[in-house]
C-alpha cells in the first residue's frame, strides 16, 4: 500500500522531512493548523491554547476517560505567514527528548485550486534524539499511550 506521507530521515542527520499532498485548497490546509478546534480534532487531542501569532504559544492535552492526562505537549509559535508558513517549537511533556524546531511550509500544488502540499522540516537537538523519536511508535510504554491516543481518535471520528 502506497502511503501518501513521505518521510525522509537521512542517516546521521538530526532532522526529518515529512511531506504530504492533500486534496484540499491550501487555505483550508492552513486553517487546519489555525483553528484550535480543527487542530485538536485531527490531532486527536485537546488544544487548550493556540496563539497563532509571532511569539505566540500553544498547548495540547489529551485525557483518558477517567481524566488522567496521557499526553501533553506545548511550544512557541516563532513566526506565521497566512497560508504559507508556520515556524514553531514542539516539546512533549514528561519525555526525555527536549524541544524540536519545526518549519511547516504550505503550498498550492501546481495550478490546482484543490490540491496542496505540506512540508514539515523537523529539527531535533541531536541525531540520537531524532532516531529515538523515529522509534517512538515501537517503545512499549509510549506505544500504549499511542494506542490510547488512536482509540481516542477513533472515538472522536
Amino acid at each position, binding site marked *: 500500500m502506497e502511503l*501518501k506521507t513521505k*518521510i525522509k530521515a537521512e542517516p546521521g542527520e538530526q532532522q526529518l522531512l515529512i511531506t*504530504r499532498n492533500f*486534496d484540499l485548497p491550501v487555505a483550508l490546509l492552513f486553517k*487546519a493548523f489555525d483553528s484550535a478546534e480543527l487542530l485538536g480534532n485531527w490531532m*486527536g487531542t485537546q488544544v487548550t491554547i493556540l496563539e497563532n501569532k509571532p511569539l505566540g504559544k500553544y498547548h495540547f492535552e489529551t485525557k483518558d476517560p477517567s481524566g488522567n492526562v496521557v499526553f501533553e505537549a506545548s511550544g512557541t509559535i516563532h513566526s506565521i505567514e497566512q497560508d504559507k508558513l508556520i515556524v514553531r517549537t514542539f516539546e512533549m511533556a514528561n519525555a526525555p527528548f527536549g524541544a524540536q524546531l519545526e518549519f511547516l511550509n504550505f503550498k498550492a500544488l501546481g495550478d490546482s485550486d484543490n490540491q496542496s502540499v505540506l512540508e514539515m522540516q523537523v529539527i531535533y537537538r541531536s541525531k540520537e534524539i531524532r*532516531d529515538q523519536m*523515529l*522509534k517512538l*511508535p515501537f517503545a512499549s510504554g509510549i506505544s500504549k499511550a499511542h494506542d490510547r491516543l488512536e482509540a481516542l481518535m477513533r472515538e472522536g471520528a
Partner: protein
Amino acid sequence: MKLRRDVFQALADPTRRAILLMVATQSMTAGAIAQGFDAARPTISKHLSILTECALVVSHKDGREIYYDVNAAKMKEVDDFLTPFRKMWEARFDKLEAVMKNYTAQQDQDKGGKS
C-alpha cells in the same frame, strides 16, 4: 521476521549506530574503528560481530587486515523502521483531510441554510 528484529536490536545500541556511521563513509578495520571509542577493543569486536550477523555491515579481507563496510542494501531495509512513524502521520493527515472536507461541507450547508 526474526532477521528484522535483530536489525532493530542491533540499531538500538548507540555505539553500534556510531560504528555504522563511521563505516558508512569508508571501509575501516576493527582497530581503526576502536580508536574512535573509549570502549575496549573486544567490546568493539563484539559490536562488529553483531552488526555482521544481522548483515548491517559486511567485511572483506585485504592482505592481513579485515575491513568493514556498511551494507547499503540492508540499510535500505532499515528504512522499514520508519513505517510505524509514517503510518502514525499518515493516519493523522488522513484525519486532517477528512476533518477539513467535513468542515467545508458544513460551511456550504450553513451558507445554503442562510440564503
